[in-house]
């Protein structure tokens, strides 16, 4: 039981829980207690330290901005206005809050308010669904499209859209990059003839990819029913992110251990068998490393692309909040920042776990 649990925990990359499990089982209490402190409690201390620095930094910025505001009021409108401004800031009124880095408490508050907002919107949706149930049933009978809820999406909906986009982009990248990588890897002629293309397009910025995809999609797709902005954003994400997989796959295929190739030659394996039984499994570790990089790049560029493509998602959420300039906008942006970071981390962990699962040499994966 205990060993199995430890194995699972390690597999998921939660190795820091291992000493705790051992401790609970009463195994070498002293050693495991120190290990637990080292592996689990120190990170907690560092989080507290981080929040502390953030808090005092935000405080400092707040005070600086407040002083500036008061000084400005004094210069422009005289002493009375300055006193009024000071009182207004102190009272925490919405109209005169200094616009600066939000404190951890404000961000937490924004997070809670986003959750509340989500609940409110889901309630509205349910209400709407209940209302339109009969009409939709009728419409379905007639073969018409059902009426859909078209209200504002909540924060969690935006996260879902983003994840959907990133996976669509990731799959596109994998479907393009892996086959091409294998073909290029197998033939040194193709590799040298297409190398320029990879080298030139690899460093191109996501913004430019977005514009390029926009040019093409705009012309190609005229059907107004299709979700054009989603297509543009996921295709750009895929194109931006596929290069890591492409390069890694072709390198993995090109550098398969010579011993394996000799075996394949001596056993006179057919081309298909050679690829699927020898070359692909041998290059799996590198292909997966490429896919892992691809996924993290996809997530990273997604935000920028959504922001520009005006397709719904976390990116446009951030941009809208920035444009919005409401009192808690900055705090919401920071919430989005943490959500983006945590989801990115989780995606990487998932990929790592799959990679460990698929790879023949467990020790190679780090």
């Amino acid at each position, binding site marked *: 039981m205990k060993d199995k649990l430890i194995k699972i925990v390690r597999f998921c990359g939660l190795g820091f829980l291992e000493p705790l499990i051992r401790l609970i089982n009463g195994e070498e209490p002293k050693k495991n207690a120190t290990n637990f402190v080292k592996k689990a409690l120190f990170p907690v201390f560092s989080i507290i330290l981080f929040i502390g620095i953030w808090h005092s930094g935000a405080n400092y910025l707040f005070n600086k901005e407040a002083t500036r505001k008061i000084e400005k009021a004094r210069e422009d409108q005289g002493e009375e206005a300055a006193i009024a401004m000071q009182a207004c800031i102190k009272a925490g009124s919405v109209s005169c809050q200094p616009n600066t880095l939000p404190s951890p408490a404000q961000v937490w508050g924004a997070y809670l308010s986003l959750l509340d907002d989500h609940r409110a919107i889901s309630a509205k949706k349910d209400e709407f669904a209940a209302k339109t149930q009969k009409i939709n049933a009728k419409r379905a009978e007639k073969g018409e499209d059902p009426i859909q809820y078209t209200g504002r999406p909540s924060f969690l909906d935006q996260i879902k859209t983003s994840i959907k986009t990133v996976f669509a982009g990731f799959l596109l990248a994998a479907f393009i990059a892996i086959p091409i990588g294998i073909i290029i890897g197998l033939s040194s002629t193709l590799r040298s003839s297409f190398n320029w293309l990879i080298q030139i397009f690899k460093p191109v910025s996501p913004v430019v990819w977005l514009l390029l995809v926009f040019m093409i999609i705009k012309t190609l797709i005229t059907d107004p029913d299709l979700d054009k902005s989603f297509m543009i954003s996921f295709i750009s994400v895929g194109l931006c992110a596929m290069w890591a997989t492409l390069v890694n796959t072709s390198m993995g295929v090109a550098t398969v251990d010579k011993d394996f190739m000799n075996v394949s*030659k001596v056993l006179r394996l057919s081309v298909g*068998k050679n690829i699927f039984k020898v070359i692909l499994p041998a290059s799996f570790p590198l292909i997966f490393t490429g896919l892992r990089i691809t996924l993290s790049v996809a997530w990273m560029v997604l935000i920028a692309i959504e922001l520009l493509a005006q397709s719904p998602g976390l990116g446009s959420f951030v941009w809208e909040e920035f444009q919005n300039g409401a009192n808690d906008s900055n705090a919401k942006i920071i919430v989005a920042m943490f959500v983006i970071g945590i989801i990115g981390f989780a995606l990487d962990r998932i990929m790592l776990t799959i990679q460990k699962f698929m790879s023949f040499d467990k020790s190679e994966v780090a």
Partner: protein
Amino acid sequence: MAFLELNNVSKSYGTGKDKVEVLKDINLHIEEGEFVAIVGFTGSGKTTLINLVNGLLFPDEGEVLLNGKPILGPGPDRGVVFQNYSLLPWLSVRDNVKLAIDEAYPSASRAEKKERIEKYVEMVHLSHAIDKKPAELSGGMRQRVSVARALAMNPDMLLMDEPLSALDALTRGTLQEEIVNIWSQDQKTCLLITNDVDEGIVMADRIIPLKPGPKATLGPEFKVDFERPRVITEINKDPAYKHLRNEVIEYLIKVGANRKSTTHVDLELPDLQPIMPGRLQWGKKKEKEKVKYF
């Protein structure tokens, strides 16, 4: 006509100034059913020699004939046991052997293939580990799988490239015996490359030393006519064994010493003075070094 013939075979790597002639004028005749061991130093071109026979390499000059026909590439008539096992680590023992079976008997039914796989795995005493991955096996077990894979193609000839050199002495002894046992069952022709004279004496009918490269050639052959089955502990006491062993080793040491004396080159050292970092005079130096680019 011998089963395998190498006539005046030469092989070199690289071109121009870097060209290294590894093998020069190799002549080797192996009869059907014979067990021949080639003994030589590391780096003397043994692996090149066996790659010429298994078809991974082709000779620059001369010819390699199998049954009177030149070798055009790897084939199912020659099973190869590699020095570093070369098992595919993502396949189980069963699947590793299956690769060879699929190649040798493409039209056999599934059950028939399964039976054959199990037969060859049984032959090397690994039935208990048939579903394990190579990483879970010890070195000796891996090399057994490699032997089983080579045998599974039912080749006319077995080529072994230092198959046991990575194993410890005890495992090596058992595996030597097992390989000889398997060989004696159907008397396949065997070519063994080794750096261990004892291994050659225990296993082979003939021992042929390979003189150290570059331009390696084969030395005079030594016949090994001890009765089979040979048991190492008994042979050890045999004065004839000691005599043969010493003869081979003396020969090898002699050609090894020759190599040293013939390749000795006096290198002229440039007359350099060490630089003292603290004493560099930057101003003066700059004046002197007027470098013109372009």
